[in-house]
């Protein structure tokens, strides 16, 4: 039931994006949704004709949607912070550093680790790629919160839907790898349910274009180093003030 609800919501969001021209603002997200919709349809039709179709094509389709999913997260990061070059640079550097480290670590584990059967290998790889997505999303949100950046309804909804789906997927895949096939039905329902709820969030958030709140102008004098020096000087004064020795 969840799966069908998600499949029905996808064309609603896609048609609405054509109606309101929202696809111009968030092209990668709509491409992602289109890929998921087409992929799900192809898998459903293919499996109804050939039982092995799902096993053969699930992973290639999932890989494509995962890669575009990364694109959506990078797009959210870029659009959230585009008016704040400093915050953008910090989040991008930290995010890509985490991405690189975790990705290389996972690649090394898969290259030199034990050789799993294909189905086990695929679920482990998917779980690890979801972990990288999780960390990248987390970095983006931490940057947005830390620098006090207010997002509009569209971006908030996009990020929230992604968080929900990626988080639940990560939990399901981790539990699946730990417990095995005993709770297949539960994991599938949970994942489909999360995706449908995420769809609901996206449908609500992207119903109309909602620009981000006004960006305050940067009318401060001096560069970053001057600002950092000033802050450090004040922090040092505060540090002495609170925990240091008594000053003459």
């Amino acid at each position, binding site marked *: 039931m969840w799966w069908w609800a998600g499949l029905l919501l996808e064309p609603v969001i896609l048609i609405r994006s054509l109606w309101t021209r929202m696809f111009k603002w968030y092209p990668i997200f709509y491409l992602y949704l289109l890929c998921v919709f087409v992929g799900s349809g192809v898998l459903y039709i293919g499996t109804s004709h050939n039982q092995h179709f799902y096993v053969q094509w699930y992973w290639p389709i999932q890989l494509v949607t995962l890669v575009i999913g990364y694109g959506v997260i990078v797009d959210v990061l870029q659009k959230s912070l585009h008016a*704040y*070059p*400093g*915050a953008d*640079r*910090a989040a991008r*550097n930290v995010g890509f550093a985490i991405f690189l480290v975790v990705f290389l670590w996972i690649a090394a584990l898969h290259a030199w680790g034990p050789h799993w059967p294909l189905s086990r290998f695929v679920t482990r790889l998917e779980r690890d790629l979801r*972990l990288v997505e*999780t*960390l990248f*999303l*987390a970095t983006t*949100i*931490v940057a*947005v*919160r*830390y*620098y*006090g*950046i*207010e*997002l509009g309804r569209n971006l*908030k909804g996009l990020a*929230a839907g992604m*968080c*929900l789906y990626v*988080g639940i997927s*990560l*939990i399901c*895949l*981790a*539990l699946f*790898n730990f417990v095995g096939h005993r709770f297949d039905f539960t994991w599938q329902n949970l994942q489909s349910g999360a995706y449908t709820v995420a769809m609901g969030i996206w449908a609500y958030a992207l119903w109309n274009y909602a620009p981000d*709140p*006004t960006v*305050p*102008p*940067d*009318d*401060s004098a001096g*560069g*970053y*180093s001057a*600002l*950092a020096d*000033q*802050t*450090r*000087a*004040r*922090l040092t*004064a*505060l*540090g002495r*003030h*609170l925990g*240091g020795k*008594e*000053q*003459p």
Partner: protein
Amino acid sequence: MIALLFYIGAAVCLFFLMFALARPQRAPVEGIAHQFVEARSSLQTLQQGLLPADLLNRIFDRRDLDYIDGQAAPEIRRLFLSQRKAISLMWVRRVRSEILNLMHFHRSHSRFHTSISILTEMRLALDFAGLLFVCRILETIFSLRGPYAAPRLVQSVASAASRLCAASEKSLAFLNVPGVNAFRGDSTPGNAAV
């Protein structure tokens, strides 16, 4: 099992962040100039109203307690201590709020600078966290052991308050436009006053 907990922990952290994202932000949307003016006004309030050394000496001077001990009944002593405790807690909370203001002020500026240094940002974030932690410790000391439990710390605060204000004053000095005072109140009748 550890790996499972790690993956689930990462997902749970993401959910917490998702809820944090939904909460409204504290940073104002006005221009930076507005924040400079607010910081300046806050500094003046501190210098002139809240943190002069003689006021702090009045609050934390132990001689007041000694006087009460020698002259008044135990109920009066209890009342005195509870009131002093309330005042000292108010004071440390005010210092904490100033550190928070400074933190918000820095973040709202640094987000615009392309030459931002990740290491500096991380170090500053840790320093802010450390100072806020020290404030919490002071608050706990005052709550548990009363206003006279950390006299040296209070004395150092009293002497360092002026340094803090001086440091802040430097970065906000450009707001003191000397020419403006010359015009204040000097307008001819019927003209606009500055």
